[in-house]
């Protein structure tokens, strides 16, 4: 084991010192590095018995090197020994010969700017035996909620301690430690002569002791039981009410609308001059806010060391900003926004969405209540198979979903169906919002009403 890596995490100063020595010995003047290490333990159970218990110690680094021509190369490794670091740096130098002269990343001008203070309490791990007891209890509780719930085939309770570092040869040094815990419970229920049904719930927290286990069991049970009485749905066009989770999933799948990297690459639905265009109904706001206090595991800085911040994407339905890395920001003449990865070609991605009505607007149709609608309403609880059913660069989607058809105020689970449409049409067909915004692992969002979506039922 190298002196940079030990069971307690990374040592930034040792890492910097080693890199400086290796860089100097290999004629490398300019470099930066992202490093991460984590310790995880997790348990799964099966009808009261431990099924699999896992532990992992992981470490990895990505180094970038600028060569004498100013071109950039990158290499990643999990080998943090001295020889591993040397191989990584020299590998990056070799790769820099193939760097793209038309798109050269630089150090972020904000890599030493002050970071926002995040309230992220570090919790000591509970240990695998306590995790096991907690999960066995949760499973038993869930199994006892309904006679039809026979198994909880997908379940897990995990806790993680992690640390990440960003360093560069100009002296930037970012470091963040984090502890997180997660619980998921997906139950399977089956009644005689009927198809099996499945649903679940997830909870995140900064420590296993902080997890809302009862809430997770309650939600998994309620959702699973609610799908037991199902019926097919006629194929047709419906007004759909997206749950916060489902709408966040949909917006996330089409986040290339807001992605400057995708714009520059020609694979976004937006263009360079799209800022200021109306993309949605005039009462829709979308912000990206990785710093929201409910965002468990928020990062204080991105892969290039740029501070995370709240960014308006849509205000009043109008596109206000793109998500940027250092390189895309330079191309657009703006400041980096804190949404970069680390690479020779730097990726860009969203952190955590806040979606809701535009302040001061009417928020669309008021008083929406899916149980009091005068027409049949499709309530979309969760979308699946987004990787297969979303054509992000085309705007179209066709996605299976779990949900209910509400007629006359009575919800009935839909046997199997897909919802299809175009994200640009969806954003302009929003009728309004129902209820308060809900915190989910991916963001904050109320229920969203969208009219005229195509739903296909399985015959």
């Amino acid at each position, binding site marked *: 084991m190298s002196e940079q890596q030990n069971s307690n995490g990374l040592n930034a100063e040792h890492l910097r010192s080693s890199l400086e020595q290796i860089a100097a010995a290999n004629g490398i003047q300019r470099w930066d590095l992202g490093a991460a290490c984590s310790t995880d333990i997790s348990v799964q159970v099966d009808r009261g018995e431990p099924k699999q218990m896992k532990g992992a110690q992981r470490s990895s680094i990505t180094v970038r090197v600028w060569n004498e021509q100013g071109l950039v190369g990158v*290499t990643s490794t999990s080998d943090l020994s001295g020889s591993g670091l040397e191989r990584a740096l020299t590998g990056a130098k070799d790769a820099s010969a193939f760097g793209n002269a038309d798109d050269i990343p630089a150090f972020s001008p904000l890599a030493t700017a002050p970071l926002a203070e995040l309230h992220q309490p570090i919790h000591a791990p509970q240990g695998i035996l306590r995790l096991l007891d907690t999960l066995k209890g949760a499973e038993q509780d869930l199994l006892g909620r309904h006679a039809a719930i026979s198994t909880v085939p997908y379940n897990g309770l995990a806790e993680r301690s992690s640390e990440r570092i960003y360093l560069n040869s100009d002296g930037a040094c970012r470091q963040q430690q984090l502890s997180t815990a997660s619980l998921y419970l997906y139950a399977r229920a089956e009644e005689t002569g009927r198809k099996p049904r499945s649903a679940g719930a997830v909870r995140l927290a900064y420590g296993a002791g902080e997890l809302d286990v009862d809430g997770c069991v309650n939600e998994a049970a309620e959702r699973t039981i609610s799908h037991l009485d199902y019926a097919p749905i006629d194929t047709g066009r419906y007004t759909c009410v997206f749950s916060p989770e489902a709408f966040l999933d949909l917006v996330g799948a089409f986040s290339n609308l807001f992605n400057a990297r995708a714009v520059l690459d020609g694979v976004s639905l937006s263009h360079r001059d799209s800022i200021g265009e109306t993309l949605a109904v005039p009462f829709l706001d979308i912000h990206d806010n990785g710093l929201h206090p409910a965002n468990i595991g928020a990062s204080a800085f991105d892969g290039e060391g740029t501070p995370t911040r709240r960014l308006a994407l849509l205000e009043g339905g109008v596109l206000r900003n793109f998500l940027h890395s250092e390189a895309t920001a330079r191309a657009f003449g703006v400041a980096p926004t804190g949404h970069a990865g680390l690479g020779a070609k730097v990726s860009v991605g969203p952190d955590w969405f806040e979606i809701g009505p535009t302040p001061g607007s009417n928020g669309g149709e008021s008083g929406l209540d899916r149980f009091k609608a005068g027409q049949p309403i499709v309530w979309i609880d969760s979308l699946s198979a987004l990787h297969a059913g979303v054509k992000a660069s085309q705007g179209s989607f066709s996605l299976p979903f779990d949900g209910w058809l509400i007629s006359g105020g009575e919800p009935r689970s839909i046997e199997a169906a897909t919802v299809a449409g175009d994200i640009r049409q969806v954003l302009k067909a929003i009728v309004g919002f129902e209820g308060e915004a809900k915190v989910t692992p991916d963001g904050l969002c109320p229920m969203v009403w969208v009219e005229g979506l195509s739903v296909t039922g399985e015959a």
Partner: protein
Amino acid sequence: MIATAPPEAGAFDSRWTASLEDLLACGRAAGADLVEVFLERTDHLGVLAEQDTITSVTPAFGMGAGIRVFRDRRDGFVSTNDLSPAGLRRALEQALGMLGLEPSANGRSGFDGLPALRDFAAAKTDWLQRCPQLQEATGRLLEGTDQLQRQGSHLQARRGSYARDWQEVLVAASDGTFGRDIRLHQSVGLNVLAADGEHRAGVGRRYGTADQPDDLRRWDATASAAEVCASAGTMLYADYVEAGQMPAVLANRFGGVIFHEACGHLLETTQVERGTTPFAERVGEVIAHEAVTAIDEGLTGGAFGSLSMDDEGMEAQRTVLIENGVLKRFISDRAGEMRTGHARTGSGRRQSHTFAAASRMRNTYIAAGPHTPEQLIASVERGLYCKSMGGGSVGPTGQFNFAVEEAYLIENGKLTKPVKGATLIGEAKEVMPRISMCANDLELAAGFCGSVSGSIFVTVGQPHIKVDSITVGGR
């Protein structure tokens, strides 16, 4: 501390024997029924070309170990990047601790040591060096994007990507398993986004092989670009498909993803363990149309899912899953055999040392039938021809869905206009009996499969098949 320190660098060879024996003996002496150590070294290269420029070169290398301990029907698994004696010992002790076991100075291990190494890698040690170097790889990729430019129209974005994954593994277990292998996977993909006003079509293809260092040199960039451009040109102006229930003919090669997702996953013992397959108690029963025979194997030369040995050290096999509609066997790994009774099939696979092996597919396909593809299409009065499939998934209750990348209406036994936006939806146990005709043109296609033990290299395949009735999601 382990008595014998492992070598610090170089290949995973018999120099590791003594230190691995120490670990295995320690685990057994602590009371484990079986201890397995999986060592891994990797070397990856990724290259991306956009338009006529190399925009990303991403080398990566790594190493690590996964240690798994079984006692009764339970197991504990710990992975680490730290291959030092202390690191491996710490991982073993953590895995033992998960099962309530502790190393014992006086315990009897009952472990007699490892046999001679079964070295499947001996003839493969130069594979990495024989692969194209960066200069050659980037040149070949730019040939691909150049061909896209020459053959396509309305192309807003052209991309070529190349991935080379080299992996050396060593598996040692206290039941006497001791094997080493080297794996090499290379794939090259071409993608375009065609746009003309409001019309947009994104089309991609990926080609991949295993264990063929010269693969990229042999890649026919012109033919690949022609396939991609033809599809993009067709789909750019296609109308959206109308949703409904209809017969479908699925083309060969990647059309096999339907069997992989809809049925193959349900024949893994991990699904039997979870109680999530409808086929658990149906070995020997008819679960599909008699036209269907399905195979999973790891033997086809050069195929993406082929293996000399699996990630539990067992040699690959040919496993008949379904024969003339009758369920014959499940795909099983070590834990699956222990927990379900289905004998191992050389199918214990994992993405890397950070995952415990699980029963996973290799090269999985429906066998060829007696018909011609034209006969299948001619038998449909009104339906859908799915020429190119996208990705798909199967849910915890067996519901599946697949995106169709390129499709055509079948009207009166003939292909007519192209349509887009189709999704095939169904449930395995209902669709399998509806596969009523198989053509004589079996072909395989490389793919990636993500599941409980990570993302692995697989092959899907089939001849043209006809499904009598399936739900098509559209607009």
